[in-house]
């Protein structure tokens, strides 16, 4: 059995991205000086080209399985992959100035982000437990390395090592779960599993499923597998943290959806209970633990844990509306996080990064535009209408109520009230305290552009909410079409 080039058309973007990464790697090795900056921009170009290719080859309507049913493409995967590609491109652009200033600008950085993105795309398109695992490993391995990219800093190395050890443990659990599922069902293929598994699955399958969910929960840093998140977010270089908070979360969440909906679609009753617990735990932890944080990167880490909890509400509803609410939530979360981190990256004083919340004091007086944008992101994360974050929360709570998960919805609302406290505290610091010392102003045009675009999205989301909802509905429709 061979493959012709047109048969594997849905995988062209992945193939292109892999070739681009390898080509740029070779180019980077042979370029003498200034390789980092030009390779970075070329990588951004490659990501954009991959995105365009992705839109060109998207199969209309149903799902297309290729490579002996190891790889799947449909509207859902295309939607998610485009978001991931965008987040990765922004991640590279955000790192440019930082890497230069911190003297860690090396051409391998964008290459590793490209390869991580490739891994994420493979995860999203996985149609088999093995391809899921390989994609996940490709992504994780690249992320371990870039977490430790600032290798002269003890904190960064520690972040990389911590992430690696715990990530390896999570991969082990995922593999163990996969092996149980294979042992008890006789297949690793999602289509086959969906056929074989029915509501009264054996205990072995359930145990395997729980292990797989543990592995995935680790990757989205949901409670109780969140321990690594604050340390890694704090230790890793800030643009890397921004990247971690965006693209990999999106990919892992999409994988979570496609695994639970696809092969384990008949086991809703079983995985729903687990998900509800994970969601409640993440929301509460994200709400309460962040209150005491003074480091803004740690604070955003807990915020992302909480956000994953809200997104999981939609998934645990187990309905199409719920899944599409997750996609909406994640898209909005992506933009808000990127915007917030673009502000954090501007927090420099006398050429050095500062990371404390109190360093933002009086920002409204010294840099009113940036303070306004940050306030916008914080209000949006707190879920204040009519900003984008409100809609994200609105759709997931709506899905939960429709699925009669009232308690979950109530806890969600309460947790978001708690979370609003610390988001508003940042706004308070910026607007109602006297400035200590001015932050540096020469941050480069890239970051302000990203902030502005993200701010515009958050502010005007209400105007184009309808087409986004339609797109996610279409994506979920193609995912569940079988």
């Amino acid at each position: 059995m061979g493959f012709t080039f047109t048969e594997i058309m849905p995988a062209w973007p992945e193939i292109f991205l892999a070739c681009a990464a390898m080509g740029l790697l070779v180019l980077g090795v042979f370029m003498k000086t200034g390789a980092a900056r030009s390779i970075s921009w070329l990588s951004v170009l490659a990501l954009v080209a991959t995105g365009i290719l992705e839109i060109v080859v998207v199969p209309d309507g149903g799902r297309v399985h290729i490579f002996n049913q190891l790889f799947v493409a449909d509207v859902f995967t295309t939607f998610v992959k485009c978001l991931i590609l965008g987040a990765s491109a922004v991640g590279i652009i955000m790192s440019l100035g930082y890497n230069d200033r911190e003297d860690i600008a090396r051409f391998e950085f964008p290459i590793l982000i490209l390869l991580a993105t490739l891994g994420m795309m493979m995860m999203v398109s996985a149609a088999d437990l093995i391809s899921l695992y390989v994609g996940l490993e490709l992504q994780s391995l690249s992320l371990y390395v870039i977490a430790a990219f600032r290798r002269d800093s003890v904190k960064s190395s520690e972040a990389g090592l911590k992430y690696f050890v715990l990530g390896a443990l999570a991969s082990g659990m995922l593999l163990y779960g996969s092996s149980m599922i294979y042992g008890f069902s006789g297949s690793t293929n999602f289509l086959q599993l969906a056929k074989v598994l029915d509501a009264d699955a054996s205990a072995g399958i359930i145990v395997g499923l729980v292990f797989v969910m543990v592995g995935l929960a680790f990757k989205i840093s949901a409670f109780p597998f969140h321990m690594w998140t604050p340390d890694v977010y704090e230790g890793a270089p800030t643009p890397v943290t921004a990247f971690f908070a965006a693209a990999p979360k999106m990919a892992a969440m999409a994988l979570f959806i496609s695994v639970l909906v696809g092969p384990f679609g008949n086991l809703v009753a079983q995985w729903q209970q687990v998900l509800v617990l994970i969601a409640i735990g993440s929301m509460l932890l994200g709400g309460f633990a962040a209150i005491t944080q003074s480091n803004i990167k740690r604070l955003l880490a807990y915020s992302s844990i909480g956000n994953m909890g809200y997104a999981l509400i939609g998934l645990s509803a187990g309905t199409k509306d719920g899944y599409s609410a997750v996609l909406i939530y994640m898209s909005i979360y992506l933009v808000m996080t990127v915007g917030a981190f673009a502000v954090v990256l501007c927090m420099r004083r006398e050429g050095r990064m500062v990371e404390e919340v109190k360093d933002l004091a009086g920002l409204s007086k010294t840099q009113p535009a940036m303070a306004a944008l940050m306030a916008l992101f914080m209000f949006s994360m707190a879920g204040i209408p009519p900003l984008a974050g409100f809609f994200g929360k609105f759709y997931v709570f709506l899905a939960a109520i429709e699925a009669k998960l009232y308690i979950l919805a109530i806890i969600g609302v309460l947790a978001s009230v708690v979370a609003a406290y610390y988001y508003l505290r940042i706004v308070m610091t910026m607007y109602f305290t006297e400035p200590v010392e001015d932050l540096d102003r020469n941050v480069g045009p890239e970051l302000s552009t990203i902030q502005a675009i993200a701010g515009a999205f958050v502010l005007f989301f209400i105007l184009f909410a309808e087409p986004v909802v339609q797109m996610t509905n279409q994506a979920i429709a193609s995912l569940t079409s079988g």
Partner: protein
Amino acid sequence: MVVQALAFYAFAAVLISAGIMVVVSKNPVHSVLFLILCFFNAAGLFVMMGAEFLAMILVIVYVGAVAVLFLFVVMMLDVNFTELREGFARYLPIGLVIGVVLLIELIVLVSGAIPIGKASGPVAKAIAKQPSGHNTEMIGRLLYTDYFYLFQAAGMVLLVAMIGAIVLTHRRRDGVRRQSIAKQTARKSSESIRVVDVKPGEGL
């Protein structure tokens, strides 16, 4: 058959006891050497199952390359292993619990209390298609057709591992004078030797 059974039990017994020795032996170098013994016996078991290709690859990759580097590192490092062992008693209960859980699972599986699905999917199909033939050839056929995607993806994973190792450890030193072999061999005596007429008693 008797010989085969004997060989199996010999391999299995040595494998398990060497595995135990890997964990309990005091000297880390001995641990690595016992690990190598484990690999050998596992390879022996593979041969007995008729998977000679896997057996050889196990020896070449794990014993011939991976374990050499292990041994290399363990010999070079001066780790205080008594210090490492201090936590042993503390973590023993957790380890025991996990071990017992796994054991119970294995027993449940073997006893057949839970029905196990039949193997399907590409492997089973491929084996059914080619009942005879060398398993080297069969593995090759599978890897380059049915599992082509995974094969390539695994290649990318290894590439990332390589880039990562280089990024995290490679340091470019300034002022290193590199040998240029082409330059050295292209050198002619006319460029580098000068005949000087030295007058006696004067020097240069």
